[in-house]
């Protein structure tokens, strides 16, 4: 079985984001594997550990993404392809076109895993566009996955805690949500081995693609945190009475 996993290099969710200029941010912060992609990497690794085959990571990012690619390789993947660009934010359609080209050049896979969204640009659609380009089915927000008789079965969360049970033909794209699995922690020997695994770097320009770039990031604005809370003191009963009065009469958020 051959499995691709799409992995994005994103800022640590704990990092402060400082906007620079009109539409950039200070990138001298910690970057790591997009959290949702960790579930994708883990599911791919488990599948191949069971069925045999190889897990190939595909990343589109700046050259500095190599660090994240190496750390992802320590989580049960075999090799990686890194397409280098000079931008952190690409249009989802462009990213999908790049992923598709790389995958077609590398040879078809049985399953492609991805995260359901990247935590920086949060566009939530790259996996769909990749599937469309490859003309294969896609399910996103996936919290359970299994394969049997050349069919993939997934559970996908929908509103109100309900879940859809979906069956897909293979190959297909599976975009992971939290709950799909418990990602492993890399052990030191895995980290050492990952350093020697193959990472093929390709410059975006060398792919010969014409990108459409129909979505433009015009501005990025900082959102300030709220200022500190008004602390409601006094006894428990007095405090909750005051709170309810404020919520009903001043804020008018409850009736």
């Amino acid at each position: 079985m051959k499995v691709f996993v799409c992995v994005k290099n994103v800022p640590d969710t704990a990092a402060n984001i400082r906007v620079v200029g009109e539409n950039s941010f200070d990138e001298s912060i910690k970057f790591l594997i997009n959290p949702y992609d960790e579930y994708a990497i883990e599911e791919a690794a488990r599948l191949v550990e069971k069925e045999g085959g190889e897990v190939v990571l595909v990343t589109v990012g700046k050259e500095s993404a190599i660090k994240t690619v190496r750390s992802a390789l320590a989580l049960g993947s075999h090799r990686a392809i890194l397409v280098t660009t000079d931008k952190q934010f690409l249009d989802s359609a462009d990213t999908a076109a790049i992923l598709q080209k790389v995958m077609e050049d590398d040879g078809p896979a049985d399953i492609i895993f991805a995260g359901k969204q990247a935590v920086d640009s949060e566009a939530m659609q790259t996996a769909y566009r990749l599937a469309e380009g490859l003309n294969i089915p896609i399910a996103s927000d996936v919290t359970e996955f299994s394969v049997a008789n050349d069919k993939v079965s997934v559970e996908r969360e929908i509103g109100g805690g309900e879940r859809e049970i979906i069956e897909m033909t293979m190959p297909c794209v599976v975009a992971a949500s939290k709950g799909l699995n418990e990602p492993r922690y890399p052990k030191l020997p895995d980290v050492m081995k990952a350093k020697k695994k193959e990472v093929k770097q390709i410059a975006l320009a060398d792919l010969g693609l014409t990108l459409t770039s129909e979505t433009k990031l015009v501005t990025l604005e900082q959102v300030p945190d709220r200022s500190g809370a008004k602390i409601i003191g006094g006894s428990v009963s007095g405090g909750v009475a005051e709170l309810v009065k404020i919520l009903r009469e001043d804020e008018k958020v409850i009736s």
Partner: protein
Amino acid sequence: MTKVAVLIETTDNEVKAANFGVLTAAHGDGHEIYAFLTGADAEGCKAVLGKYGVGAIISIEGDGADLQAKPDLKAKAIIAAMKEYETSVLLALSSSEGRDILARVAASLKVPLATDCLSVDISSSTVRKPYFSGKTIATLKMNGAYFLSAIRPNAVEPAEAPAEAAVISFTAVVGDYDGLVVKEIKQSSSGKVDLSEANVIVSGGRPIGSEENFKILEECADAMGGAVGASRVSVDEGYAPHSIQVGQTGKIVNPRLYIACGISGSVQHFAGMKTSKVIVAINSDKDAPIFNKCDYGIVGDIFEVVPALTAELAK
């Protein structure tokens, strides 16, 4: 004149209240609003959709295909309706259903899509949406043949704009597709308010300590017609299901009132509830970080304060 289509979500043939904000986002000078409806009784939705400015309800069916079980065919049918009624704009709720269908439509038409939008400006094809989980807001300009946007529930304040809605049946020729089939829908404990669309949420963190203890939060939420949420720690410890986790790797919620009970206030938790109108924290530690970034706070033990709050609400 701009023709705007809005994908309507229903439960049991009723238009979900969360759609009203999306319909309001569709309003504009000379806009003609088309409500796209699948799998629901259009006549029954006429009055409520008219109230929010819908001129035409397009009741979409596949030619024999089960659109609910085959989202790819549903997307195809919606594209056919967009072409038939020449709607250059398609809006939906940024819910799991809305995002899924819009992404399929956008991928198939090869046009831009913005999800989780806080506001849209149809005349300039721009949207405002969070980047970095609410730490920043991005303005995106989209230059495609169609303008597609999924709008965060409760982001746009509903405004009525009464119109007379006509029902039009539309049958799309979609063929068949077996690549992806929804086999079954597993219900959750029924009748619960959907977290992403809830107006009031009471959330519990680590000190809740057990599944049973969530009951005190449920009672408090019930007293306000709200829903219950959880921090990641409560989910990972098994006190609450994944489906109610709020935050970076959970649900994004946008209620009028969010009450965080025994939650420390990590950036990842705020990633999911930062845009709530009013945030209240109940925490026994007066130095808990959450008190620095919410609106009201009560310093105290949740097991005393929450039941007292429930009792006060019942008065």
